[in-house]
């Protein structure tokens, strides 16, 4: 390894990144993905637009309506309209749900006779539809339970469920999603950059400079990967600041662990990109291949949509083959849990990330040829 030669080559790489404006992508892409996904994905349902058609107009029916008015889950309006008119509003996608309270609701309920409440939900977006349904049913049932308990109809001594949400007390979507996104972003962006570095020279023909020069394989790779590594290291801090200040995700763990794991993870991602760059010939193929390998598994196994523990056999094994699962475990720990180095699992996963880097890097280096085929 000759430091001066590497330095000169690195300078050339830096200049090239700036001149081809690829550097814009280095900083634009990660922040953009984080911001768009962070704002764009909402798993919970809030401000569902609900129409209540109250045919009873009793005290009890009004109590029920008011239960729906003072929550962040519903934007409620009370209207006098026919069922068909209300359905038309749903068809126009102006409302999400209708609740119809029948005319003798209060009387029947207190007498203990059955009364029927009609609920109509727009399930064109199925998961949301189901969630809205659960919320509406829950609200009604808990109110009815309360009313009956007061009147002494229901039995005493019920089981109350005392639930404590760990790590994310407010159940904020941002807290659950944004840390996972960092894992996704730091997988895709460095990989794409690294994938372009070598294949670009192949496509333009400048790879022959490398073939003909006395530069060794190690020096070449160091000169190629170091600039990408340094540039992306800055992203670790940018993404951290965005999460903590823009999305207001709490940070409870050790920053050192976050930084260390992220640097390692960038190395994994760069080695992956380099590997792809070595085996492909065209830039566009390299980019598409990188996106296929990183984006979809990254999203599936990030733990954002589904926790790894509840996947079934095959996908659980598959999840273990991709680095994102290990990194995200550490990231969620540093942001929300705060176990840090005390947790053996974190240390183990840190080691696995290191292993990923070594394996991917050595295979890539092995396949890199210093002469024409």
């Amino acid at each position, binding site marked *: 390894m000759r430091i001066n030669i590497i330095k000169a080559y690195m300078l050339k790489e830096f200049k090239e990144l700036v001149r081809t404006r690829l550097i814009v992508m280095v900083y634009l892409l990660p922040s953009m993905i984080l911001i768009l996904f962070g704002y764009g994905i909402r798993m919970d349902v809030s401000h569902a637009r609900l129409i209540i058609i109250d045919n009873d107009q009793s005290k009890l029916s009004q109590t029920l309506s008011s239960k729906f008015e003072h929550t962040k889950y519903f934007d409620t309006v009370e209207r006098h309209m026919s069922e068909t008119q209300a359905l038309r509003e749903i068809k126009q996608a102006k409302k999400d749900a209708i609740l119809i309270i029948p005319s003798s609701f209060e009387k029947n309920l207190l007498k203990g006779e059955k009364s029927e409440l009609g609920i109509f939900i727009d399930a064109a977006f199925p998961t949301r539809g189901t969630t809205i349904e659960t919320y509406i049913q829950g609200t009604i*049932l808990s109110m009815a339970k309360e009313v009956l308990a007061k009147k002494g109809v229901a039995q005493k*001594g019920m089981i109350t469920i005392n639930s404590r949400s760990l790590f994310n007390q407010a159940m904020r979507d941002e807290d659950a999603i944004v840390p996972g996104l960092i894992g996704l972003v730091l997988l895709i962006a460095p990989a794409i950059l690294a994938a372009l570095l070598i294949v670009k020279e192949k496509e333009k023909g400048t790879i022959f400079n490398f073939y003909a020069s006395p530069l060794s394989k190690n020096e070449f790779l160091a000169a190629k990967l170091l600039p990408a590594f340094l540039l992306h290291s800055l992203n670790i801090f940018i993404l951290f600041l965005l999460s903590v200040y823009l999305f207001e995700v709490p940070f409870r763990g050790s920053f050192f662990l976050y930084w260390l794991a992220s640097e390692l993870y960038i190395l994994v991602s760069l080695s992956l990109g380099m590997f792809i760059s070595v085996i492909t010939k065209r830039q566009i193929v390299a980019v598409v291949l990188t996106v296929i390998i990183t984006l979809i598994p990254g999203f599936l196994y990030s733990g954002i949509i589904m926790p790894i523990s509840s996947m079934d056999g095959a996908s659980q094994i598959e999840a273990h083959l991709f680095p994102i699962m290990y990194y995200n475990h550490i990231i969620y720990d540093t942001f929300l849990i705060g176990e840090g180095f005390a947790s053996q699992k974190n240390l183990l996963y840190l080691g696995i990330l290191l292993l990923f880097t070594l394996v991917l890097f050595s295979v890539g280096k092995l396949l890199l040829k210093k002469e024409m085929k």
Partner: protein
Amino acid sequence: MKSFFTVFSKEIISFMRSIPLVAVILYSFTADIYIAGAGMQIKPRNVVIGYVDNSGGGLSQKILSHFHQPEFVTPKPYLSQKALSRAIFNKEVLVGLIFNSDFEKKYKKHEDTQLDVLIDATAASQSLTTLAYLHNIILDFEKVDIPLKLQSHKLFNQNADNHSFMALTELLSMITLLSVILTAIVFVKEKEDGTWDLMLLMPVNPKIIILAKSASQVFIVTAGVVLALGFVILTTFNTPLNGSFWSFMLLTLLYGFSSAGIGLFVAAISKDVMQVAQLSIVIMMPLIFLSGAWTPIYAMSPVFQKLSLISPLRYYIEGSESIFYRGTAFVDLLPYFGGVTLLGVLLYWYGFRKIGRLF
């Protein structure tokens, strides 16, 4: 008119001859949509529950026996609360139940009984569903007879089938992505291959060239949409088509031109295919994410709600969902047609001007 069709068919032929491209398009409109529809499963499945049982058995086991496949894995016992917390911290368990030693005694004496539940809230949707389940199980248990019948109807998609919905969303994103990229590539390829000057020398009005080239790509995408509908969406996933097929095709065609407009703009400012890919990502991602495909518009922050008004995809997605699921009457679809057409004309006109300067 004749020259329009000559250029148009030339593009179609050169598309058909490039076998990899045809393969990619076929893949995108069939297998890719199938994978997206079949693979995405957001409903809770195999949720792992752990419990600590100090109450000695009977009642607690009865409650636990209600958690079963496919939603839940058989609950795992832990010896102490500490061991249970550790398992939750290590993400081996999502929900932990703790039965205190006086749990059963108190219940039998009709005193108020408490069941402690620990939830890993980083997997919020799975945990919340588990909690709702638990409430229902306990309600069942106490046999409280509430004289209410909740007559619940999930309109348009009775079984809340997520697969057909995901497949449709993927199709709509594919249409967006491909009509931008294909249109841009048709022009940039000429730049890259050096045939741009040949094109300039053709005795054809440049306006007709641009029109024919972009129309040919919109045509290819539309053909792909028909394929996707026929082979995947309407058949494999049984997506309901409650509205009119032709209004969807018309909306798709109009939308195709508005994305083609974006494609023309991208083609005008990029030099090679690589730049097309980069620019398309930067332009398309905000468009897709702010379109209401993942989060309904009204639940977004106000700034994004305003921004989404200028995204043609917003009108297209809402319109298509209304056609497929809600079966909305044509009169009520007019706002969507209006939005797509207006933005389409603007975008296409802008892209047309931008690339026209290069001729």
